């Protein structure tokens, strides 16, 4: 395979037994751990993927976070507050995993706010109504779970372990979204319209979350060979569609795809082609909310600088005082 050749050529200079040990670990389906030797390409691919994943959690707080102060019941307010908080926590677990690879969180944050590292395209869409909170839980967290459950078996130990924690917590995220939508569908006509409208807006972007089709996904092959990723984009997309269609029927909403139908021969649903040009535009920074999302993150980071500096300065003074105390 091309990727294995690439990995081998990168390993020039590394003792062959290290390369062999690494490949045997992957082949035996065991985890690679931080102190293990690993090919530079493996490390770089992982840092990129884990950092993007972490950035997605942090940027992903924004579209829903907007609604915490306006949630229409105290129960919904508590659920949403806790959910958005979880996303901050998930971002932290993932940055922590990235740091075991030698990345530095401040550096990753700077890459994010300078637009040098990406996050999931889905968070560049706006959330104009409260139904969006429900649909994000149902679609976006549902899609995230499809993506993430297999990552619990990723070949890199710290990433896999972070995903285990995250998946456990996110099952609540999807359920709260679906439950909100069920409640709204039992409510007023205006509420039902809100739900259908949100479904219409989020369906295609959700399908795009799995990334470009397999024949046009430049980084997938290497990730698969190294077992960083365990399933292809198209496989996961199919899984998501198959999972969601019966849920939509039960909810009483229409998924906005005239080509969507059960294919008994394949044992899967057929569905239409997402607008890949739109995905490319959004990934390249031209989505409806890219600028505002990155700007918010930048503002928080920059406006918080004096606080972080103060805490570091206090810690330094404390250390110095302790030293003086010990010397005296």
């Amino acid at each position, binding site marked *: 395979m091309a990727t294995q050749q690439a990995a081998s050529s990168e390993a020039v200079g590394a003792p062959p037994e290290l390369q062999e*040990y690494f490949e045997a670990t992957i082949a035996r389906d065991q985890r690679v751990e931080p*102190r*293990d030797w690993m090919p530079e390409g493996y490390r770089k691919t992982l840092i990129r993927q884990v950092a993007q994943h972490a950035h997605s959690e942090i940027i992903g707080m924004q579209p829903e976070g907007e609604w915490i102060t306006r949630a229409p019941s105290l129960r919904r307010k508590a659920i949403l507050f806790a959910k958005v908080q979880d996303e901050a926590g998930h971002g932290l677990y993932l940055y922590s995993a990235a740091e075991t690879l030698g990345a530095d969180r401040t550096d990753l944050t700077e890459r994010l706010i300078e637009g040098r590292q990406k996050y999931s395209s889905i968070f560049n869409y706006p959330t104009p109504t409260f139904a969006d909170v429900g649909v994000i839980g149902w679609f976006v967290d549902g899609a995230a779970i499809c993506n993430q459950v297999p990552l619990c078996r990723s070949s890199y*130990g*710290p990433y896999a372990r972070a995903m285990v924690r995250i998946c456990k917590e996110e099952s609540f995220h999807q359920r709260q979204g679906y439950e909100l939508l069920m409640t709204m569908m039992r409510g007023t006509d205006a509420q039902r319209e809100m739900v259908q409208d949100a479904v219409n807006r989020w369906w295609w972007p959700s399908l795009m979350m799995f990334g470009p089709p397999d024949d046009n996904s430049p980084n997938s092959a290497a990730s698969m060979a190294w077992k960083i990723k365990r399933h292809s984009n198209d496989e996961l997309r199919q899984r998501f569609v198959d999972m969601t269609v019966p849920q939509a029927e039960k909810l009483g909403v229409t998924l906005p795809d005239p080509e969507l139908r059960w294919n008994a021969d394949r044992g899967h649903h057929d569905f239409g082609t997402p607008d890949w040009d739109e995905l490319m535009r959004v990934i390249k920074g031209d989505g409806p909310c890219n600028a505002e999302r990155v700007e918010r993150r930048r503002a928080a980071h920059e406006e918080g600088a004096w606080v*972080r500096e103060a805490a*570091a300065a206090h*810690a*330094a003074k404390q250390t110095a005082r302790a030293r003086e105390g010990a010397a005296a």
Partner: protein
Amino acid sequence: MSDTQQGAKAGWPLYEVFVRGKRGLNHVHVGSLHAADDGMALTHARDLYTRRNEGVSIWVVRSEHIAASTRDEKDPFFAPSADKVYRHPTFYDIPDDVPHI
């Protein structure tokens, strides 16, 4: 001192977090976080890794203060002088002398 000054620029230093979920179990490494000092690291660990579940015991230790070796003799001990990633502990038995803060 120099690393703290660096810390102000580069962000707070990295801490490793070990949690004992219930009595009778060992502390287990759960991940890392950033904090300016030990007290803040404990507070953050409690907020992040336990959501303040009562009765759990938490250890935090600056990542750079952990020395580690691999358990598996065949596991190549590679480039001990390399950067912090190679000294990063994860999933190894916790040495008995990790201080209980």
